[in-house]
Each structure stands twice: as C-alpha cells, then as structure tokens.
C-alpha cells in the first residue's frame, strides 16, 4: 500500500489538481481516491487496464465529482461511484491499454488540431475555456473535438488490440 502511494501519488495529485484547483480540496480528492483504491483493489484485473490507467480512472472520477459539487451545478449528478468497475460482465473491453507507447502512437494519429487540444487538456490540464482562449476556437468546437478525439483514440486502440466490440456493462 505504501509503495502504491509512493508510486502513484504524483499521478493522483496531478489529476486532482487538474480538476480541483483548491489545494485543500485536491488533497481530499487524493485521499478519497486512495481509499477508493483500497476498496476496489481486489476488483482490479490487469487484463482490463494497467495499474496507472486503473488508478487514473479512479482519480478522474473522484476529481470530476468533486469539481461538479464545488461548482454547485445542480443539474450535474456525480459520476456513478465505482459503478463501472462493479458492472463489468464476464468479458473485459478489449482495448490495448497495456503500453504507453500505444497511447502515444494513437494520439499521433489523430488530426493535428485534435492532438493540440489533447495536449492542452490532458497534459497541461487546461479547462475548455482556457483552451478556447489559447486557440481562438469556439468553446463548442473544443468540446466536440475532445469528445470525437476520445472516441477516435478509443477506436484506434481497439484496432491496435485487434479488438472485438467492447463490452457493455449496462444491462
């Protein structure tokens, strides 16, 4: 457990700070993420995701939930808590998550403007309005390109993994 904290605290902290700017709230997100990790650890299956992807997913959920609550946007419900992890059916989604090189390779295959938006969003942690300011693109375009880019990246990763259709978890 201590090894895990040492190894992944940087990743979890980076993700927490990306979505929750307040320092103390980001610390809460880190703490909640690791508690969730202790709870979910037994459900982790390396066939589905690498450790860092799994932990990154938990951190993203916590951070996004926290950001939603902080922004007091009542129309947005929290993401289902650990729902996806417990609702998997017998087949894992067949996406090649194992190698970071695959992820980078796939990003390189995206259209250049999408790559740039990915860089701003995922690496720099910029918000949509910040990206819009930086690029001069309308906010709606940023949203659309991020969403479509994510879908495209998923499809390319599936292709790399000679993927079957990914598994549904909602009955």
């Amino acid at each position, binding site marked *: 457990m201590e090894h895990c904290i040492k190894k992944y605290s940087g990743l979890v902290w*980076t993700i927490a700070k990306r979505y929750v700017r307040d320092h103390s709230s980001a610390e809460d997100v880190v703490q909640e993420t690791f*508690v969730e990790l*202790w709870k979910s650890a*037994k*459900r982790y299956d390396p066939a589905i995701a690498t450790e860092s992807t799994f932990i990154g997913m938990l951190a*993203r959920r916590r951070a996004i939930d926290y950001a939603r609550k902080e922004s007091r946007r009542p129309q947005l419900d929290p993401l289902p808590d650990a729902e996806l992890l417990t*609702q*998997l059916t017998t087949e894992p989604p067949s996406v090649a998550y194992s190698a970071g090189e695959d992820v980078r390779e796939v990003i390189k295959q995206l259209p250049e403007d999408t790559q740039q938006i990915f860089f701003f969003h995922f690496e720099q942690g910029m918000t949509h309005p910040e990206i819009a300011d930086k690029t001069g693109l309308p906010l709606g375009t940023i*949203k659309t390109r991020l969403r479509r880019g994510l879908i495209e990246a998923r499809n390319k990763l599936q292709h790399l993994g000679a993927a079957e259709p990914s598994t549904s978890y909602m009955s």
Partner: protein
Amino acid sequence: MINQELLKHFEELEAGRILGDLDADELQQWESLSKDPSCTVDLSLELTAAAIEAELSHDQETELSDSLMRQLQEDISKFTVADDHAELNDADNIVKLSAWKRAVTTPQIPWAIAALFAILFVANSLTQDGGPNTDQPIPAIALNPSPEEARDAILSNTKNLVQLDFGGTDSYNKMTGKVVWSDELQEGYMTLSNLPVNDPSKKQYQLWIVDPTRDTKPVDGGVFDIPEGQSTAVIAINNPLVITNPKAFVITMEQPGGVVVSKQQDVVAIAKAS
C-alpha cells in the same frame, strides 16, 4: 428502435460525461438515452481517457504534504478488510482477483460489492482453513441481493454493529428509521419509513456521518432518493472515506447531486448515539 445517428449522438454524450463537460441539457439527453437498451455504455472510453491522462501526466512529480501522507497512512491502517484479503502479485505488484468478473454483474453497486466481499470471505476462509473462519465477518449474501437482503445479511452475520434509531425533525416528524453500520465491513444501511417522495431533479436526500475520530466535520454518506410507492426504503450508505466510530447519522435535503458542505437548512432526520 433507436437509429445509428442516435447511437452516435449517445456515444458523443458518453464521451462528454467522461470528460466532465456535459451541460444540463446534454445530461438530460444522456440520462434519457441511457435507459434505452440499445444505448449500452462500456468502460472503453473511460479507460481511454484515463490511459491518455496517465500517459501524458505521469512525468509530473509531486510530493504530497506530510499531513496528507499521515492521513493516508491512517486510512491504510484502518482499512483492514481490504488489507486482509488483498492478493498481491509479486511480479508486477498488481492486485488480482480472478473471480470478480464472474461474480459481479449487477448494476446495483453496493450490493454487488457486498456480494463480492461475501464470495471473497468464504473463498478465503475455505482455502486457508478448510472451513469457514468464524473470526471474520461473512456476510452470507446471495449474488445480486436486494438492499433488504444485504442489510439482513450484515445484521445476521456481522459483529460489533452500530445500530441507531432515526428521529425526524419538525417537518418530517412522521418518519421513522434505523441505521445499521459495520466499521469492519465499511458498510451500512438505512431503513427509512414515511419520508416524503422527492423529485431528484429538484432535491435529493443526503446522508452525513459524524465521526469525531476522523474530523470535526460530518462526512458525506451519499445522496439518495425516496421513489414513489415506497413507504419503507432501504438505502445503502455510500461513504467515500473510512468511517471508524460514527456517533451520529444526519439526513439533510440538498440540491441534486448533494453538496460538499451542508448549510443544514433542511435537516430531515438524525440518528444519534446516546
């Protein structure tokens, strides 16, 4: 029958949900479409986002504060259930559980987790001792148990439970209820009667847990709804943080999705240890 265009639209909404950028209108569309059996969602988009984020973020090194590190150490030491049953793979430091994928198929999370723990406990005690280990909590819950079954199981099989009665405040004085909580399992259920039905798009009930050993502030215990036609509802407690010594459970009415800090403007009910 839903058409391809709608499926594509739903996929984009799902991507937005994962990226955390759905607006209210889009969220409504997502909720509505997600009820259609044709609009299935899978892990792949979320894992892709997490993989990209992990890959692009992992070079950034950060030192956690001493106080946070201390808190995490404390959490680890308290979280005995997870520690006792974790199975570390020495080769890659991966925690594995081969049975979970077969065991967990329900969309009802807390019950699924309870069922999973039940299987783990039974399997663990059988493999270690050749028979059930009575020292460990074994919530003998069937797969996909209802909340009532999950509650009854921990009532029957778990020691050292916290059990308190709820009392409604002035506007809710007809309500009655009980809460049962296990520190060991980090699991608990509320049985609530005569609470008014809420409209989740306008207000939601939120549980708060007062645990003086961890914080002076109450800890969020999750939001929940009382649907139409249920005079008595059994609600699973959804605690993101470890609770070790709950002294009170407080239900408030809050905005949809709950709040980070309750102003306690609408306190519904309180269950307090004497």
